[in-house]
């Protein structure tokens, strides 16, 4: 099994999906000759040509809007939004159109669309190249929101997303692109959209995370293990639909829950997970449901000192784990 980074796994997934089905095409800014600003689509333009790897005009609303139309005309578009920070102009098309078309047409029309976009910080991207946007979109029924954190999951989930008859927002943490490596099998496989994955089993506390924070949680769990605390780390992988069963089963075992994300706390995705646990596992809890999130400031600043102050870290996560374990 070859080892590769998360970005390469996504590229391989795209390549294989395009080879397998001629209906698949890519549409976004700089995805052609340049291969995307992060190089995710590198080589695909040469392999599949300008009719299947298409440089779009610099206009996010029509990137998504046109892909919605294309999806309704028997193709399988993959839209790339260059940075999640720039998805706002397409919000209307994603939320009002892509997510609602199947429902509003009473099941008559489908929008098999994947929107890939890099999100998250810790890479000196400042306010407008670091944002986490999952909370805005996870709120919307009709849309699927996927947040892989390992190369294996990224490739497997991407293929599931391309084959899904619904619009899928595929969020790629940009710091994990080259940082996170892992084994990816040669054979064709899928990771289904929906199920969470226990990345590290444990007994004392349950920690829920996704994307880069999943890795920070694993690091913190390692630290806690040395201190005699057994931490279960659950990778949510898909935020919508959310795997509440796995979440609740884990909390029922450990009696303690911590949710970690980089997005700011107020109204963040962790609030939903916390509410589900409070509603359905109250009797099993031996401590408060805890959350860690980015600070409630408009976005992540550029200066290294400020960026570091914004990002949750393995150390700050370990501190929270200790507090929770002490209950």
């Amino acid at each position, binding site marked *: 099994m070859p080892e590769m980074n998360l970005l390469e796994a996504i590229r391989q997934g795209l390549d294989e999906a395009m080879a397998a*089905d001629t209906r698949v*095409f890519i*549409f976004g800014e700089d995805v052609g000759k340049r291969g995307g600003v992060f190089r995710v689509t590198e080589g695909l333009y040469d392999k599949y040509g300008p*009719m*299947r790897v*298409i440089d*779009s*005009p610099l*206009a996010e*609303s*029509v990137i*998504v*809007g*046109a*892909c*919605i*139309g*294309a*999806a*309704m*005309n*028997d*193709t399988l*578009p993959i839209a790339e939004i260059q940075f999640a920070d720039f998805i706002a*102009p397409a919000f*209307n*098309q994603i939320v*009002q*159109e892509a997510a*609602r*078309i*199947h*429902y*509003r*047409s*009473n*099941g*008559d*029309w*489908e929008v098999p669309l994947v929107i890939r976009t890099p999100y998250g910080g810790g890479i000196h991207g400042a306010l407008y190249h670091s944002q986490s946007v999952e909370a805005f979109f996870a709120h919307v*029924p*009709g849309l*699927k929101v996927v947040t892989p954190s390992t190369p294996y999951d990224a490739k497997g989930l991407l293929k599931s997303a391309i*084959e*899904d*008859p*619904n619009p899928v927002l595929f969020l790629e943490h940009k710091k994990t692109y080259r940082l996170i490596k892992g084994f990816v099998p040669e054979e064709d496989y899928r990771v289904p959209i929906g199920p969470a994955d226990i990345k590290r089993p444990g007994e004392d506390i349950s920690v829920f995370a996704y994307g880069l924070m999943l890795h920070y949680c694993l690091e913190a769990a390692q630290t806690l293990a040395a201190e005699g605390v057994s931490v279960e780390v659950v990778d949510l992988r898909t935020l919508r*639909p959310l795997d509440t069963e796995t979440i609740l089963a884990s909390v029922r075992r450990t009696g303690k829950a911590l949710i970690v994300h980089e997005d700011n706390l107020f109204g963040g995705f962790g609030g939903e997970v916390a509410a589900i646990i409070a509603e359905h596992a109250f009797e099993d809890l031996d401590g408060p449901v805890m959350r860690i999130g980015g600070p409630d400031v408009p976005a992540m600043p550029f200066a290294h000192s400020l960026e570091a102050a914004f990002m949750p870290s393995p150390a700050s996560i370990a501190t929270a784990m200790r507090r929770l374990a002490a209950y």
Partner: protein
Amino acid sequence: MTVSINEISASPGFGHDLPPHTLQDMLRYMMLARALDERMWVLNRAGKAPFVISCQGHEAAQVGAAFALSRGKDFVLPYYRGLATVLVMGMTPTEVMLGLFARATDPSSGGRQMPAHYGCRRLKIVTQSSPVGTQIAHAAGIGLAEKIKGGDAVAWVSFGEGTTSQGDFHEALNLAAVHRLPVIFQCENNEYAISVHQRQQMAVASVADRGPAYGIPGISVDGTDVLAVYEVTRRAVERARRGDGPTLIEARVVRMTAHSSDDNDRTYRPPHELTLVRHQDPIVRFVAQLREHGILSEAEEQAMRAEVAAIVDRATEEAERAPMPEPETLYDHVYAPARPRR
């Protein structure tokens, strides 16, 4: 590249060589749309239909354009005034009324959307929403997919002149122009966006002026002249199928009603204008043209009106009798089920 209307009217003789029965069909659809529309207002005033939004005054623009399309092959994305469009494309009067009454068997949405948000996959009528202009981007994308697949269907999309202020209009025109996509953009310019006049919407005299700015033809046509609209659309369709790209057509129409059943246009339209609009009725105009050219006798006209009235009666009765959606179906179709891999 803006084509002047004189050039269009200078082409063939009356009717652009369309056989008399086709010309009569065009009129029948216009009358049917009008009669359905008028009945909807009656039902609204009677408390049976909470919301009506009209195509009155737009019939010629819609019927003329739709007759230039290939039904079942070309995609249409009509906005909420597109009643005549969807009738020509194959939606039945009963189906339209099922939408008005929000019945379970409404083909557009099963009673989920407000009336006039048309859609029907079988007829290639693409589902519409309420935020204006979003469908223009979808039309460009349908054209893009068609080009990728190497097919020769076109996407025809309609919208009001107020909607041309939306970013999606500009983004979609630009994309379609860059890739020479088979799309026909029909702006039905009735000079008002609810109460806001065109003068406050744009600094150009005609929406068609936008075309050349994107490198595509912009054509302004009298949208109360069904044959003129047919002819410009026919040429635009030909051009699109040839692979020469999109066309922007401004059909100058009149809005013969208030914006919707929730609006009172007397609060912002001067009385003389309301009278004038009555004299620009596209149906009256087409009847006169057909009469003048010996294509429609007085008796035929009366028969047509009676036929249409009977159809509207039957459609109203059938739709009113149809069941409402079951409350349990509220949760249906949030997500489409997985398909077998191909």
